[in-house]
C-alpha cells in the first residue's frame, strides 16, 4: 500500500457512497465485531435491498466474510466472537433476545465457500431443511419441494435419474448447485453466499452466476467474492471492505468505472489485493 493510500485509510471516518437503500431487506447499523481483543470489523453500516445482489469485495482478511456471517449469526458458535451494533431483518433486530438463531437461519440461508453436501442422497440433502422445519405435510409435498428447488438451482435435469445417489458423488459445480438447492428448499428471504465459486472452474462458475441472477427475482442476495469480474457481472451494488472498514458502497457500475475513494480505485485497478 502506498503511503498516500495508507494515509487515506487512516483518515477514513465514514463510508463513501450511499449505504442505505429505499427498500431495505436487511440493515447493518454500526456493526463492530471482535475476536477476543482483536477487532475485525469497525463500525460498518450497510443495507441490503430487496431483490438485489450486493457484492462484497476486498483484499484477504478485510472482514467481508466475517460481516456476512454476522447476518445469520453463524459467528455465535465461535466462543470468543462478540458483535456490537445492530443488524435488522425487516426492521427487527437479529441480536435481540427474542430472536432464535435457528429460526433466523431458516429465514437467512447460507451457501459456503467449499461445496459441503451432507453425506446423504441428493434427495435427502435437499429435503433435509424442509424436514427439520416441518415444511411439507406429506411425501408428495416434499417431493415437490425437492424437485422445484433442484429445478431452480438448475440441477434437476442432471440428477433426476439418480436422486438416491450420494450428494458427494456429484462434481464440484454440481455439488455447489446442490448446496444452493438445499438452501432455497427452506425458502429463505435472504441468501448469503461466501465465495460460492472459489472452488469451481469457469464453466461451473458461469452456471452459478446465471443462477444467482435468476434467484434475484425472489431473494435478497449478499455475495462475498474475490473476483472483481464476478462482482461486476452478478451484482447491482458493490461494497468495498478494507482492513475491517467498509470503505465504499455504490452502484456496481459506478464502483468499477468511477470509484470515489483512493483505496477502492487502487484495488479495482489491481494495485494491491
Amino acid at each position, binding site marked *: 500500500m502506498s503511503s498516500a493510500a495508507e494515509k487515506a485509510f487512516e483518515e477514513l471516518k465514514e463510508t463513501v457512497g450511499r449505504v442505505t437503500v429505499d427498500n431495505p431487506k436487511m440493515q447493518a447499523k454500526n456493526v463492530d465485531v471482535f475476536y477476543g481483543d482483536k477487532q475485525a470489523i469497525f463500525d460498518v453500516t450497510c443495507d441490503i435491498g430487496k431483490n438485489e445482489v450486493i457484492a462484497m469485495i476486498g483484499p484477504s482478511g478485510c472482514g467481508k466474510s466475517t460481516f456476512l456471517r454476522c447476518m445469520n449469526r453463524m459467528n455465535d458458535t465461535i466462543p470468543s466472537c462478540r458483535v456490537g451494533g445492530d443488524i435488522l431483518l425487516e426492521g427487527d433486530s437479529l441480536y435481540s433476545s427474542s430472536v432464535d438463531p435457528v429460526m433466523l437461519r431458516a429465514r437467512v440461508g447460507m451457501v459456503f465457500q467449499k461445496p*459441503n453436501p451432507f453425506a446423504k442422497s441428493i434427495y435427502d440433502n435437499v429435503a433435509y431443511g424442509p424436514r427439520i422445519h416441518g415444511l411439507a405435510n406429506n411425501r408428495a409435498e416434499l417431493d415437490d419441494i425437492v424437485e422445484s428447488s433442484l429445478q431452480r438451482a438448475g440441477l434437476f435435469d442432471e440428477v433426476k435419474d439418480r436422486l438416491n445417489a450420494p450428494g458427494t458423488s456429484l462434481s464440484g459445480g454440481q455439488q455447489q448447485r446442490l448446496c444452493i438447492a438445499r438452501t432455497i428448499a427452506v425458502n429463505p428471504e435472504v441468501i448469503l453466499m461466501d465465495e460460492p465459486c472459489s472452488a469451481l472452474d469457469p464453466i461451473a462458475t458461469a452456471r452459478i452466476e446465471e443462477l444467482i441472477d435468476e434467484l434475484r427475482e425472489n431473494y435478497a442476495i449478499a455475495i462475498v467474492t474475490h473476483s472483481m469480474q464476478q462482482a461486476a457481472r452478478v451484482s447491482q451494488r458493490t461494497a468495498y471492505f478494507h482492513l475491517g472498514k467498509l470503505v465504499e458502497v455504490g452502484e456496481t457500475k459506478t464502483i468499477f468505472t468511477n470509484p470515489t475513494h483512493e483505496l477502492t480505485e487502487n484495488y479495482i485497478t489491481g494495485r494491491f489485493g
Partner: protein
Amino acid sequence: MSNNTTEKVRASLQKRYFKEKVFRSIGVVAIVASLSFLVVLLGSIIYKGYPAFKASYIQLDVTLTEETLDVSADAEDSELRRANYLGAIRTALRERFPEVTKRGDKRNLYRLISSGAEYALSDFMMEDRSRFGQTHSLWLLADDEADALLKRNKDLTKPIRTGENAKNKDALITRLNTDQLGWLQSFKEAGETDVRLASTFFTNGDSREAEQAGIRAALIGSAYTLLITFVLSFPIAVAAAIYLEEFAPQNKFTDIVEVNINNLAAVPSIVFGLLGLAVFINYLQLPRSAPVVGGIVLSLMTLPTIIISSRAALKAVPPSIREAARGLGASPVQVVTHHVLPLAMPGILTGTIIGLAQALGETAPLLMIGMVAFIVDIPNSVTDPATVLPVQVFLWADAPERAFTERTSGAILVLLAFLVVMNLTAVLLRKKFERRW
C-alpha cells in the same frame, strides 16, 4: 549456473536413493519380525492347545443289574439316579481283565477311566429305564493321563521315562505304570479306544479332573461381563464425548475434566479392581465374584478409551458439515444426531471394540473382586458367581496336571476366537454404517 545445479543434484541423488533403500528395508524387516513373532506365538499355542479339543474314550461292556448297581429294578427315579454306577464300571473293568486280582492292581486299573464316567452312566440309565437289567457296550471318558497318551497316538509299548532311562528321549512321559500301559495297549489292540471331538470342553464348567474341565462357565461369565461393560460404558462414554466435543464451553473445568480422562486411561487396571472391591462389594454390598461387579469395574476401565477415541472420531468430522446443517437452521442437537454422530459412528465403534477387547483380556481387576473363584456351575444371570476366560487361563496355567497345560492353550485359543468374532462384528457394523452414509 544451471549446469552446476544439475551436477549437484546428480551427486546427491545416489545418496538419497540409498537412504530410501535403507528406510524401506528397515520397514520390511520390522514387518517380517513382528509377523514371525506372531506366527511363532500362535503356532505354539495352537500346537499345544489343539489336543484340548479332543478327548479319548474307552469302550466297556457295562452290565446294569440289581447286582452291579445295588438297587432293585422297581426303585424310585431318585434312588436309581444315585445307584452305584461306579461299582458297575469297576465290575466291567474286572470282567475285562479277570487276571487282575491284587487290590493295588485293581485300584490302578480303575484309574484308567475318568471319575466323571459314573455320572455319564447315570445319565445314560435315566434316559431310558428299560436299559436296566441288560449289558451295554458303552464309550466311557478316559482319565487324563490315559487320554494324553491315546490322543497323541503314542506307542504304549515303549518304556516309561523314569530314574534309569531319564535320558531316553524316546521314552514315554506319563504318570501311569507299566501295568496300566499294558491294559491300555490291550484296549487299543482290541479297537476299544477312540479319540473324538471333546464336546465336554465346551459344555462343562471347571473341574478338578483335567479331562472333565471345560470353559463353558468362563465363556458365559465373559459374555455376561462384557455385556454389562458394553451396556454401561458405550452410552456413557459416547454421551461424555459428544458433550465435551460439541457442547461444552472451553474453560478451566472442561480442561480439568479432559486431563483427568486422559490420566484415567493410564491408571493400572488393578487399581480399578481395588476400587470395585471397596465401593461395589464392601460398601454397596453387591455380590462377590459376579459378572455385574466385574462389568462395572471393567467399564470404568474402558470408559476413558472409548471417550478418547470417540472424541477423535467426532473431531474428524469436517466442520463444514456442521456449518451446513447449522446454516439450514438445524438446532445443535439436530446437527449432532443427524450429521456428526452418523459420520463419527465408524470411529466410535472401532474405539468401543478396542476398549471391549481390552476388557475381555483383563485379569488383574477381576482377581480383586473375587472372580478368580473355582466355578463349576454355569452362571445363569449376571449376579451368579462366575469367572472369565483370562482368569480361567490363569487358574489352569497354575494347575500341576499336564492335561491342564493343553487346556490352558485351548482356553487361550477360545479367547482369541472370541476376540476375532468381536472384531469381525465391529468391521461388519462399520461397513454397514459406511454404506448408509
